[in-house]
Structure formats: C-alpha cells, structure tokens
C-alpha cells in the first residue's frame, strides 16, 4: 500500500508559545486562553487537526495540553485533537492513556496521541527523571502504552514503573482504538519503534533540509512490512507562518524566531541565527514554511510526496508573536494554502 491510499490531512500545532501584545508578553493564563481560540479557529478555517505540544517553560507555558484540548473539544465538533507531543519518557503511560481516553470520550472519538521521547528536556528534572535514562524510559513506556491501547486488561512489568497484573484501565475507548503516532526528530530507533508497535510516524522537521528525512520514511515503510504491520500514514510537523506576502510573513516571523532560537541555543545546540541562515531555512530547501499562501502551498506540495507523507501539521506561532498575526496565519493556511496544496497534489497524481 502506498501513501496515496490515505486521505490528506492538514493540521495546526502549537507549543503554547507565549503571545505578546504591543511588544509585551501576555500572561501565561492569557496565552492558554488564546490557544483555545486558535483551536476553535482551526476548525472554522476548515483544517483537520489541532495539536498541542507539552512544554514547561516561560516561553511555552503548556504542561497540561489535554486540559486545553478538552476546552477546545467542547467548542468544536469536527477537528481531531491531540498532543504534539506528549513527552512520554517523563510521564506515566497509564495516566497518559487515561487523560487522552477521557479526551476521546469528551470529543466523541476525536483524540489522538503523538508520543515523543522529548527533545525539550525540561520535564526531566521537573519530575525527577535522569536525562541519561531517556532511551530506556521511552522504550519501556512506549511498550507499555502499546499494551494499554490494545484494550483489555494489562499485565506488564519493567524497570521504569510499577508492574501491572491483569489491570483494567479506564475509561475504555468507545469505538475502535486510540490513534497513536510517534514523533521522530532523527532517531532511527524511534522509526523502528513506531513500526514495531503499529503506530503512525510523525517526522518533526525543524532544521536543515526536509529531503534529508526521506530515508526515514523509506525505513518506516520497510520496517512495517518486516514486522507484519499494515500500512500506516506518515506525517510531517514543521514550523510555519502565512501572511499576505512573503515579505510580511518573514517580517512577522523572523524577530520572534531569532529571539527564541537565540535563547534556546545554549541548551539545544542551536547557533545564533543570522539573517543568511534564516533565508536558507525559509527558502526552497529549508524546513520553515514561512511566506505567502502560494509560496507555502508550493513548498508543502513539494515535500509531502518526497517524504511519502499524507499529513502536514504546521507548527504556528513563536513566543512573542501577536495573537492577531497567528489567527490570520491559521485562517490563511486553512482557507488558501490547504486548498492550493490539494490542487497541486491532485494535479501531480492525475498527471
């Protein structure tokens, strides 16, 4: 089965980036309320998914994504809602399942979970985990999560949490199974892990050339086959911002991008971004989808086939951007970019 067998899905992701008004940051509380409005707007703009990535910092005050998603669920009826990502390594798989199964109940089956090992690592000291253990934590906890989502009583033992013996975990999923993805930033082990457990693959492409990730898609497809799994969709998560013109989009995005990358640099290994670096990242070979609707649509339509992807989630906003600019970006992404991407991809398939 090839990627063409899956419907095209377009989503919005946020990390709860702190907004600014008139150049001054708004409160964490206001940022969270703004995210609810962004979620509602995502449905109104005709998009398919809204995801919230767990973070624990002043720039991204968003530790309880499921609570915020529940508020959005109450005000929407169609879009799917998920984590993007849940840092499973520093969480408890049982509680993650319970929270998202609850969200699934509240939203009438619209919940999804994207599991990540966590490139944002601030949750480790916060919850008392050792960074040096992250591989084992993620490996074991993903394995337990896979057991839980199968449904039925769970028997499991490992080193990272108390054992479970024939344990019923509620609330049960009403119909079908919870949709689970694994977010991959560059570890082949995570690609293999997703395939082994039958989880979909979400490629998190935030630096360098998107084309560089194509071998991971190939590895995923071959690994699914090797493990005897049915074909599953591949998604792409990348930062973006849409405005009337390329110039406007870049002018709105660049200062916020420069500031946050500069602040995160020391702990994440990002060099201080220069205008030249930014030009490359927003250019045709870079991972940032920043520009006019036509430019952004062209780039999405170019890379989805290269990456064998049928889903694209644009991570919108950056700390310090204004709510009106973000809202406008979501609206243009939904009403102009996505229809154009569908047109371009349809033409490619027909041609």
């Amino acid at each position, binding site marked *: 089965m090839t990627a063409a067998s899956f419907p095209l899905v377009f989503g919005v992701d946020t990390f709860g980036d702190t907004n600014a008004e008139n150049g001054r940051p708004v409160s964490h509380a206001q940022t969270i309320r703004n995210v609810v409005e962004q979620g509602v707007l995502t449905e109104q703009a005709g998009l398919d998914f809204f995801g919230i990535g767990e973070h624990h910092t002043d720039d991204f005050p968003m530790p309880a994504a499921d609570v915020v998603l529940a508020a959005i669920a109450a005000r929407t009826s169609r879009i799917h809602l998920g984590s993007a990502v849940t840092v499973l390594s520093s969480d408890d798989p049982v509680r993650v399942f319970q929270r998202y199964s609850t969200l699934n109940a509240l939203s009438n089956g619209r919940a999804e979970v994207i599991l990540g090992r966590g490139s944002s690592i601030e949750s480790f000291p916060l919850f008392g985990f050792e960074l040096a253990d992250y591989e084992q934590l993620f490996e074991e906890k993903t394995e337990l999560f896979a057991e839980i989502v199968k449904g039925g009583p769970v028997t499991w033992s490992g080193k990272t949490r108390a054992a479970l013996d024939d344990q019923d975990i509620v609330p049960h999923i009403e119909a079908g199974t919870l949709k689970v993805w694994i977010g991959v930033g560059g570890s082949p082990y995570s690609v293999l892990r997703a395939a082994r457990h039958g989880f979909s693959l979400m490629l998190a492409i935030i630096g*360098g050339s998107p084309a560089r990730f194509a071998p991971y898609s190939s590895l995923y497809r071959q690994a699914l086959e090797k493990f005897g799994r049915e074909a599953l969709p591949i998604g792409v998560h990348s930062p973006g911002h849409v405005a009337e013109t390329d110039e406007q989009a870049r002018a709105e995005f660049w200062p916020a991008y420069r500031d946050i990358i500069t602040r995160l640099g020391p*702990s994440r290994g990002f*060099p201080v971004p220069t205008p030249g670096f930014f030009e490359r990242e927003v250019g045709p070979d870079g991972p940032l989808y920043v520009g006019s609707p036509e430019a952004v649509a062209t780039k999405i339509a170019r890379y989805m086939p290269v990456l064998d992807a049928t889903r694209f989630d644009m991570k919108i906003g950056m700390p310090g951007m204004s709510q009106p600019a973000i809202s406008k970006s979501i609206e243009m992404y939904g009403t102009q970019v996505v229809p154009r991407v569908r047109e371009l991809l349809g033409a490619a398939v027909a041609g």
Partner: protein
Amino acid sequence: MNGVQVQNAVEMGSLEQERRQSLRVAVLGAGHVGPVIARLAAHAGNSVAVATSRDPDEIELSVQVLSPGAGARWAVDAVADADIVVLAVPLHRFEQIETSLVAGKVVVDMMNYWPEVNGRLATFDRRDISSSEVVARRLPQSRVVKTLNHLGYHQLDEESRPAGDPERKALGVAGDDAAAVQVVATFVEGLGFDVVRMGGLAAGRLLEPDGPVFGRPLGRADFARAVGAVAR
C-alpha cells in the same frame, strides 16, 4: 554526450577513483549520528561496519536503508578488523564500552559533554582537561583522536562536499598520536570535509559545546580564524 563531456566524465571518474578510500571502519552506535558517519564513510569507498551493544539483526534494516554500503555486525567483530573505530554513542553510554574492546585501536571520539542535553556526568564534570582527555585516560591502550563532534548530525549529512568544492567546510582534528591523527585526517577528508589540525587532545577543548566552532559549519579559513581568535 559529446566528446569533451565524455573526456571530462572519464577524468572525473578517475579522480573519484584515486580519492576512494579503503579503510576498515567500525562505527559504534546506530542512533542519530552513527548512520550518517557510516553512510559518508561507505560512500568514500571504505569498508564500514556498524555495531551496537546488541544483536546486529536489530539494526540491519536501518543500516541497509540509511547507510547503503555499510553492514551491521557484532561489535567485537566490527572492531577486530577495524583501522578506525568511531564512537558514535552519547557520552553517558561511553562508560558501558569495554576498554578492552578498543585496545590497540585508533579511536575517534565524536562525543560531547553537554550537561543541558544529556545530563551531568561526574567523570566529565571538570574544567581542567578536555572531555577527550577524560576519554583517553579511560582508554590507555587506544589512540584517541577528537573530531566530528562539533557539527550536528544533520550538518555533517548536508555539508559534506568533494575536495576542492568552494562550499566545503572544515572539521578540527586533535590528537596526541601523530600517526593516528594522520589516518583520521585522511578519513575525515574522505567524508567530505577539510581538516584543520588542532594539536594535541588538550586542544580538543576548542571543539567542545561552549567553544567557538560548535554547531557552526565554517570553511577552512573561517574555522582557523575562529579557533585562532580564541587560542590567542
């Protein structure tokens, strides 16, 4: 193709032939960076084996797809035959590597002590010597060379260029054993990078996470300027 193009192609082909390397390389680690090194090394013509602490079957598919030309082997077999052993593991895994495994070998240390990312490690939490010197002290029977650590794995992947390309970037190489440095320098050039020789392992400090070239792809001249400015 006209006659000139054919002639050019033949000449380029023979040049390519001359540059082809035939080192035996063991890459220990199959996470983010291991597959990139293995792919570039195999592309350069080297005989490349990738190994982890576990059964090679587990990584066979990813080596095949991500590092065409390389093969997955048991660590002990991969290292036994190797001219160069590349430590492509996170630093907190280093202490799990048996020192006897790499005894007598040229070892490339591409690891970083980066507490913000990988957590604190008592052995490496010191300012008086470079992290590679700590590595070398634990591996007294190996000849340790520091390089490949100061660009990210996707930068190594994307910045690799043939010799003479104006866009080719430089990597620093530091080591106490001249012969080992020589063989590693040749290897690094084959991966697609110019080499700037830094001196002994102590100078490896300049390549570390808080140093002037970390995460910055620079051409040879800019690289030399960046490290020179600090060295003065």
